[in-house]
């Protein structure tokens, strides 16, 4: 499906925005994991 690519702050396209969300999720999970490892 074609998606409008205008006005997506920081990311340019919606595809990039979705990839950014997934990347952020992976970073969050890595951070949670590290917090547990470091302090346990």
């Amino acid at each position, binding site marked *: 499906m074609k998606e409008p690519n205008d006005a997506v702050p920081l990311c340019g396209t919606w595809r990039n925005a979705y990839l950014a*969300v997934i990347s952020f999720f992976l970073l969050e999970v890595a951070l949670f994991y590290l917090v547990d490892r*470091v302090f346990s």
Partner: protein
Amino acid sequence: MSGIDYAVLFGTLLAIAFYGWWKTRADQNLDHYLRGDASIRWGTIGLSVMATQASAITFLSTPGQAYESGMAFVQNYFGLPFALIVVCAVFIPIYHRLKVVTAYEYLGQRFDQKTRLLGAFLFLLQRGLAAGITIYAPAIILSALLGWNLSLTILLAGLFVVIYTTSGGTTAVSHTQKWQMAVILVGMAIAFGMVVHRLPPNVSFLDALSVAGKMGKLNAVDFSLDPHRRYTVWSGLLGGFFLALSYFGTDQSQVQRYLAGGSLTAGRLGLLFNAVLKLPMQFFILLTGVMVFVFFQFQKPPLFFNQPVIERVAQSEQAGNLRALQSRYDHAFAEKRAAIASLTNAIDAGSAPAIKAATAAVLRPQKEIDGIHGEVKQTIKKTNPKMETNDADYVFISFVLHYLPHGLIGLLVAVIFCAAMSSSASELNALGSTTVVDFYRPLVHPAASETHYLFVSKLLTAAWGGVAISFALFANLVENLIQAINILGSIFYGSILGIFLVAFFLRFVRGTAVFVAALVSQTLVLFLFYSTSIGYLWFNVIGCVAVLALSAALQKTLLRSDGDSVRPSGPAS
């Protein structure tokens, strides 16, 4: 609570309710009432979506859950970012293109009237009951701890919401939720700061994290494949994905939030805002609960946080048992407090063998305390089997009431009320809209004026508010009501999501096939619910997959002649 607390509480609630009414006082247009006006931007939509999902129970239960079981619950939200991406990429563009007001209107355009009514009916049934619980659940806890009259607490939470939601519709809901969410986030940040501040002077935040980690409370990521573990990365990704997809994609109380304002980009950005921030928010709320746990390693907590229940046991024939348990608890806690002091010293010294020995010395009395807590619950059951034995929901609010200064207590109680009001406002707004758009307009009065529909929308929103408040007032008459409502949600969500996924992705399937498949799948889920012990979260997956498989099979076999043409509503069109 003191006078200043009541001033902060009522000042906050009245200011937000007044703002909602004032912002929309001249808004008398049906489209604005149901969809919201064009000035609603993506930030407001994002906060509105967040506020709808975060009910009062989120802020009462989640810290208590972390206090008892650690951070593992955060994994339940691991599927949410992926579900929101699917909603942004597939669901929202279709809703916008067809200019629907409710999600079920789309089912009418894609399939037929009976499938639309089935979807709308399942939503009204489930959300109508849940709206009462959204008000009742925090009211029962606050009234128990603060000694307030339960009915008055319910009316306080309910009446403000009914007034501004009925008067201003979607715009009022979105704008008030923005401020309610601001109060919630500021209040929770202050609570977090206060609990860290109230730790002993020689215990830093990093020391507190170390104590929590050594006691197994920072377990936020569990890659275990053991199906008996309640929260793992895998159950969170799979179960959480289906739950979030059905909730955000098909539940009108959420759909109405991101369709508000009428801009496709604003709706999508509002959802992506949640995809990014929901997980850190839940992590932060759980971490607040963990810090409360660490605080109570140095400050002795009560034997049982639900004080009204324990006072009733103390006046019963079980009083002797309770005194014996209290004595054992006092002894175990004194032993643990000494061990905790050794542990913090060992952490500061950085000596690994000393840390290991001190951790073992802490965990021994902690295990005994956990056992005593279980015995207290059994003693409560012996006193009266109907009494509440879960005190996790009372942990955070007990900390707030006993250890925060006046003024902040009022703010934190306002946080609980704001959360209850923001969720129930979305529910009432969605219930009123769905009843008018999917039932009243097509079935009762198809050709009335806009003014008439606006009047009926307001009337029905107020009526649903009346239903929710009445249900909350009589909710204590039904045993295990909250669990029943949660189960009810999971039982129906799977089938509803299945209908929508068929609509989006199986373009050859027509109305009759999906309608029959949904009825059969729902019957199957109900049968499994009554005849097996499957965890109810799995009904979301079973119901959804059954609708997809059955509708495709029916369309390809028995109903083949019914599929000559396809309505232009799929994602590829």
